[in-house]
């Protein structure tokens, strides 16, 4: 096992990275062919009404759709560079709908989604872990019962339903939240784009009024998503802590008379690994799965971009989104595996 001073299992990391690259390549090619197997030709939508056969042929030629699928794949991958660079050269292509490069569009939409889901996970973990832990320490107590009901309740309704409910309650009735019209008020000064995340960029620019403006618009979507996400996390934390507390080694630790703090530390360390996996999977899923929250709060993130692209059969955009979200998910899962390996070195062997 190759490890550095911190115990990082590099050989394991490189092996997992290699597998991730193969997975990415397979998914890219798979999605490429799946898109073209759909029972519709995108050209009809792109040219609109009243398009003459010549106009349709012109568009088809322009998009290389008049060539064989293998030729199109070679162009996409960058093996045929006669019409420009491809994936191997770092070019994801351009959207058929907007004409903008996919890289540029992803740079616009992805930070919004990352901002939304990162804050949501932060709030969810911040709330869920202490509550789950407290509920596990007194499994028959009132908090445990409340947590049980809540974790069922939060997950029982789809997130858009909670989003609409919260909008009705906090915006329409109580006037505590701003109108769900995006991340910034139209009159607010947008900060210079550095990360693409408005809250971070406004802090970098020292523009506190824009920061609070963005925070106010993010408040409700973040709370909605955190509300939904915290259910399964609380449940997972509670069950794992309970299981750990009932394990033989914890009984042994107690019999040795270790302090409550030391026992709690051991318990957390041993129960958080499965929770990290769950959080990692949920985070990866939310990269494209937060679409309903984005839609309800008009945030214009990657999920909405994906839906629009699918509905318009914008092949390059769909391929780009799949590639980006898959890369994100694979990296998150890799990080989760590495953390597991660090917690339990046997996994990396």
């Amino acid at each position, binding site marked *: 096992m190759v490890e550095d001073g911190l115990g990082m299992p590099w050989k394991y990391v490189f092996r997992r990275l290699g597998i991730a690259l193969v997975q990415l390549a397979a998914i890219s090619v798979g999605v490429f062919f799946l898109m073209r197997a759909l029972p519709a030709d995108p050209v009809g939508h792109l040219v609109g009404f009243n398009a003459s056969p*010549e106009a349709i*042929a012109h568009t088809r030629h322009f998009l290389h759709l008049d060539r064989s699928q293998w030729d199109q794949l070679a162009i996409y991958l960058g093996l045929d560079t006669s019409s420009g660079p491809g994936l191997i050269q770092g070019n994801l292509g351009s959207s058929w709908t907007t004409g903008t490069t996919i890289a540029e569009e992803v740079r616009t939409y992805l930070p919004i989604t990352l901002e939304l889901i990162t804050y949501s996970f932060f709030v969810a973990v911040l709330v869920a872990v202490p509550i789950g832990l407290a509920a596990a320490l007194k499994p028959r107590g009132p908090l445990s019962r409340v947590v049980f009901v809540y974790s069922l309740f939060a997950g029982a309704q789809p997130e858009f339903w909670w989003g609409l409910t919260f909008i009705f309650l906090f915006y329409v009735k109580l006037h505590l939240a701003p109108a769900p*019209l995006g991340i910034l008020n139209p009159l607010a000064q947008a900060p210079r784009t550095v990360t693409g995340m408005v809250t971070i960029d406004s802090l970098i620019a020292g523009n506190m009024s824009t920061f609070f403006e963005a925070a106010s618009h993010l408040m409700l979507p973040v709370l909605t998503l955190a509300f939904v996400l915290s259910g399964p996390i609380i449940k997972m934390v509670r069950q794992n802590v309970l299981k750990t507390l009932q394990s033989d080694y914890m009984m042994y630790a107690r019999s040795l008379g270790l302090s409550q703090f030391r026992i709690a530390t051991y318990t957390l360390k041993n129960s958080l690994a499965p929770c990290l996996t769950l959080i990692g999977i949920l985070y990866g899923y939310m990269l494209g799965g937060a679409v309903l929250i984005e839609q309800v709060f008009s945030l*214009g993130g990657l999920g909405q971009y994906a839906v629009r692209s699918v509905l*318009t059969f914008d092949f390059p955009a769909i391929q780009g989104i799949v590639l980006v979200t898959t890369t994100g998910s694979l990296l998150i899962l890799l990080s989760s595996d590495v953390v597991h390996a660090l917690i339990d070195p046997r996994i990396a062997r």
Partner: protein
Amino acid sequence: MRRVVPFLVLATLVAGACQSNSSTPSTTSITILTPSSVAALDTEAPGMLVLESMQAIVNLGEPLIDFAPAGTTSPDGVKQLDFNKFDGRLAESWSLDTSTKTWTMHLRHNVVSCVGNTFTADDVLYTFSRAKSITGSLGPLGWFFYNTAGVANFDNSVFPPTSQTTLGDEVTKVDDYTVKIKVATVRRLFLPAMTDFFTFIWDSKEMKAHATSSDPWTHDYTANVNAPGFGPYCLEKWTKGSDFIAHANPKYYRGKASIDKIDFRTVPEDANRVAALQSGAAQIVQALTPKEFDFLKKAGNGVKVNGIVGNQYLFFGMAWNIKPYDNPLVRQAFAEAIPYDQILSTSYYGTAHKWEGTVPSSYVGFHKTATQYSLDLTKAGQLLAQAGYPNGQGLDKFPNILQLAYVAEREGTLGPTATLIQASFKQLGINLQLNPLPQAQFADRVYAKHDVGLFLDDQDKPDLVTGEYALGPFMTTTGPGNYTKYSNPQMDALVAQIYAESDPVKQNDLLAQAQDMLMAAPNWIPIAEWETQWGVRSNISGITWHPEDQLRWYDLKVT
């Protein structure tokens, strides 16, 4: 520190909440909410077919001419235009020499673009040249409208193998403020085509400043950054997927617009657009369903609904060339089995009327046809029996054909309509299957491949406001919009005659004949003409309807 973190988060959220009431716009700024976002500003990019892109371009750009105000208002408060009269815009006056088939455009002086460039004949030549270059990714619509207008050499020679894409002497500069345009045929469509946003004039100096060797016609810049033109508004900020902010052009030749700033913002959820309008966070909302507009109208609270029956219609298309629809008796039976009144009240909440011709009733050349259909199941049954399908017997041989396709994304209106038709047909013994298709698939099959047996369509509309344009592309054998594969040599000859006729009165008589012929044995069953509507705060006025159905922000007033 661990104890402080939750308080920091809470403080941020509370501080954020305190900001929430600071969104009231000033009196000269308004927010318009719409479900999608501006996708492109290049008239030759597919993103231009997104309605929001159209709204953006009609406010940043300027045509050579426009329709004159009619001086009338629809019952629901929308100002109307007179499609027989024209006002000068970038062209001050114009004339046609029929002997040489040449239009002379006298251009306006002292017109300045948002970046300060002065409008001249070079901008007109650039616009025609760009359209003829067919270098955009959209099946070239600039070329298409000049072709429809009859402009010489804007024909199929631009496509391979000839690829004649360089502008020749069909459009020439006489001096800086005079341009001559030759036409291959003199058409009534010429002036309406010059009002369309696909022929708006580009600011050539600014366009050339952003051209590159790989993109000499500046498609990338217009698709992603700005649309240099001479219109009443200038782009201030454009965040794709989110908002589009424009300010009034202070140098606009008709005078600065009365509303300084427009925030054209994407809010996908209908319910949020409704809530924002009612709370005053937005001043105009668009693209709601008829049910939601009806709710807004009834709720009041400082909100009104403005609407007009313009050129939006609903029709029932039948493939002309396949059994059993190749039999006119079957098509007539179907026309007698459509529950028109129920559709108008159930799907459109009374904001539509029955379509009584095959051309929009607001267009030049509309004719209320001699044949009119109404729900009459007895007559429909008799027609079916005459066609050889008594009580629908025998039609079950065509299960794949008896499927009614419609756009799934328009379920709110088309879903109930399709169900009403299905229920009515059931009484005739016809088991109609409903087939909602995703928008892109519907477009592919109906608009491009023309391979759907039965369909409901409420999206297509002719952009140019004359009867010949409403019939030519749709009802002729080789017409690009011939979705039902209708083929009638008599109709082809009649439409050719209409296009060739220069006397408008005779043209309208011929159009009436064509519409009567179509309605007698319809390949389309015209069902309804429905209102284009906007939810508006009561202090907003001035909405004027233009054929592309988009708000012209210059017309709006805040009181």
